[in-house]
Structure formats: C-alpha cells, structure tokens
C-alpha cells in the first residue's frame, strides 16, 4: 500500500511521542495521560471519525495501517485506541444528529472515552447483561457494573450498554458522575498499561439525552456492529505486534554471533524468521481484505472482521513466541519488546471475541456457504 503523506506524518509523530518509553509504561502499568490526550487531540485515537466533526476522516485501510504502526510501538496505547475508536463508532452508529455533533468533536479534541460491554456474568454471552438504564422524565439512572473496560482508567466518559424498557441502549456516562467507581486492573497479563478497569454504577444520574439515539434498541446487531470495528482494530494491532517482532528478531539475528557466525546463518533461526514473515504477511493480507470490505460496505464485512481478528491474534501469539526464542535471554525480561509482545498477543486471543468464539462464528459461516 502507498502511504498517504498524512499517514506517514502521523506515524512519525507517534514515533517521537512514544520514543523508547513503552517498556517503562508497561512496567508501571500506566501511560502518562498527556500522551493519550496529545494523540486524542489530533483525532488519532479514532481516525475514522469524519472531518466534518473534527476527525481525520481516514478510511478503514489507512486507519488500519496507522493502528498497526501504533501497535508496533506500544500495544497498550493501541488498546486504548481500539476502545476509544469503538466509543466513537458507537456514537456514529447509534447517536442522533445532535448527539453526534456534541460528542464526536470532544473525542477528537483530547477527551478520552471507553466502552463497557462485559460484565462478570456476561462475557461471550452478552444476552446475560444485567446493567439497567431507567428513564424518568428528562433524567436517566444507571445501575450495574462492567468489567475489563479497556482505557477506563484514563477515560472522561464511558459508553455503557445496558437493558432499558423492552430492549437495550447505550448511554454516555461521565466518569466524574457521583456513584461511578473505577477499580483499576494493574496486573493484567498483557497490554498492562491500557487502563483496564472494572466500573461500578450505583444509582448514577445522567440526562436522558445521554441515551444514544434516545430509544431502546435491539442488542445483538448493535453489539455485532460495534465489535466489528473493534475486531478490525485489534487485528491490525496484532499485525503491528508481528512487525515489531520481525524487526527485533531480524536485527538480533544479524548482530548476535554464536559458533563463529551470525544467528541468521543458523538454519533453525532462519526457519523462525521465515515463519514470522509468513505470519505477519498472512495477517496483514486478511486485515487489508477486511478493511477494503469495510470501506466498500460489502455485506460480509462483519465475518471478514472476525476472520482477520482470528488469524491475526493467533499469528501474533505464535509469532511473538518465536521472537522470544530468537532473542532468547536478550528478550526475556519482563517489559522487553518481545516479552511484552508475547504477553500482549495472548490477551488478543481473548478479547473482542475469543479464539473459540471466533471459531464458532466462522464455523456457522462456513455452514451457510457450503
């Protein structure tokens, strides 16, 4: 793909902004909030938001390449980006005109958002969701809890999915509202600095106008739509992980010498490098395929997003394990790049539809095709 000038500029901006700090952020389980607000103020945490409301207006393909670049530098920031981007996408899909004009410019000017789907009793089976939104005149009350909300520790507001009347709805809840309690998860297996948190809502009062679209909606299709955005984002993030692993593994293989020759001349190392390349290329091709489908609005975009996510997450988990083998003791400390990649990619096999849930969706799709 030919990078547009803007994409190249934004990637350079990210390189300067992040520098060599990702390992330290991982070790501390925290990203300085001005870093995130800097990215957010450029609209880069939700690059597909249209220019008319202050966004960069990237198509899915360019947003994807940017996501991979950010992911190659720091999966925690990329994870925050996925959550913030899903929040923006939910607003684009569910909000009415006035709500879009109100919230989207905030999401592209430095305010941070997260999305709450998962509950302790409703993970893969979101039909078990118990969080309640009740309307009374011009106000609404939110009661319930969400777990593992990515980016929640940094967020100014969270989009909460819950039951309302005879259906479901998404409501915008400012984190500063009385009755909201954020409990940070600082020992996550991967993407340790992504601001994962459990959030509790106890009789939280918000204006009824914060309910996106002002009406009850049907849950399954809305959530599938939101997850499709998240899946493509995670998939590209995994391509970034693989690219970072390739860069690190090839560089090490070139310089590290054993038995009188560089590692790259040892056949078993060559096999790892070849495999890593195949894993990165095949993941990137499927991501590109899904993004082109998204941009063209083809009917099977949702399943292509699942396919891209499934293959990319699995490839990143396998590829990062290989990179750790190539680096060996040079990459085996807690927050080293390949060690982070190893932990981060395993988490990617769990979120936005675990590997097994994706397999169920792909099996049903195969059954419908043949």
């Amino acid at each position, binding site marked *: 793909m030919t990078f547009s000038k803007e994409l190249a500029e934004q990637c350079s901006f990210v390189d300067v902004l992040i520098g060599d700090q990702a390992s330290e952020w991982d070790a501390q389980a925290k990203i300085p909030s001005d870093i995130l607000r800097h990215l957010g103020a450029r609209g880069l945490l939700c690059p597909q938001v249209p220019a008319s409301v202050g966004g960069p207006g990237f198509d899915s393909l360019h947003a994807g390449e940017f996501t991979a670049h950010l992911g190659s530098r720091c999966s925690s920031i990329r994870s925050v980006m996925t959550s913030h981007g899903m929040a923006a996408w939910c607003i684009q899909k*569910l909000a009415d005109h006035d709500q879009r004009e109100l919230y989207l410019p905030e999401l592209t000017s430095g305010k941070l958002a997260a999305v709450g789907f998962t509950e302790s009793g409703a993970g893969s089976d979101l039909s078990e969701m118990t969080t309640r939104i009740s309307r009374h005149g011009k106000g609404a009350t939110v009661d319930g809890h969400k777990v593992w909300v990515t980016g929640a520790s940094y967020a100014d507001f969270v989009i909460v999915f819950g039951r309302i009347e005879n*259906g479901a709805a998404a409501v915008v809840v400012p984190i500063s509202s009385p009755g909201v309690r954020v409990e940070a998860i600082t020992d996550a297996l991967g993407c340790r600095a992504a601001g994962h948190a459990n959030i509790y809502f106890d009789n939280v009062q918000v204006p009824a106008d914060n309910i996106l*679209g002002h*009406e*009850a*909606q*049907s849950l*399954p*299709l*809305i*959530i*599938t*739509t939101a997850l*499709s955005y998240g899946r493509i984002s995670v998939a590209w993030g995994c391509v970034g992980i693989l690219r970072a692993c390739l860069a690190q593994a090839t560089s090490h293989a070139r310089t590290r010498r054993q038995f009188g020759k560089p590692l790259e001349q040892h056949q078993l190392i060559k096999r790892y490098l070849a495999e890593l390349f195949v894993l990165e290329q095949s993941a990137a091709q499927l991501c590109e395929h899904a993004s082109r489908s998204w941009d063209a*609005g*083809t*009917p*099977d*975009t*949702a*399943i292509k997003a*699942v396919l891209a996510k499934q293959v990319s997450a699995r490839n990143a988990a396998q590829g990062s394990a290989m990179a750790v083998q190539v680096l060996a003791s040079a990459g085996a400390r807690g927050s080293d790049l390949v060690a982070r990649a190893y932990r981060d990619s395993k988490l990617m096999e769990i979120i936005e539809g675990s590997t097994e849930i994706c397999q169920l*969706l792909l099996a*049903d*799709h195969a059954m*419908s*095709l*043949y």
Partner: protein
Amino acid sequence: MNSENYLQGDSSEDRATSELLAMLSKRLKTTVRPEQDLFADGMINSMFALELVVQIENIFNVAVEGRDLDMANFRSVNAMANLVRRLAEK
C-alpha cells in the same frame, strides 16, 4: 435492480418477497420458504443478519437503522419483506 420501479409496481408485495427469496436461496444454496423460521432452522445468527442488512439496503435502496436493526426483522422472508415495505414508505 431499479428501486423506484420496484416500489411503484402494483405487485410490490410479491416482488419484495420474490427478490428476497431469490437472494437467500442463492446465498444459502437451498430453497427457502417465505414463512420459514430461519432462526429455528439455524440459518441466521447476528453475523448473517448484518450481512442481510447490507444486502437489503443495496437491493432495495433503503436504510436499515436504529430500532429496525432488530433480529426479529430477519426471522423470515416475510418479516424482511414487511421491513422493506415499511422502510420504502418512509
């Protein structure tokens, strides 16, 4: 197909149904009946329903949004045809 002609036809009811039947039969490579419950027969999940949303938007030049994004609207060809007719009147 031309959506305007399609909407103005006297027999639009039958034509909505027959278009949908043709699309689904081709996609699923099996014969589908208008009243057949596609959920009960395991033919439709939320992923496939989203695929149908886009197919219906493209074929009939309508927008399926908000409350209409309801799985119940995709339960059968008859339900989809009702949705299409309602949206075409908007």
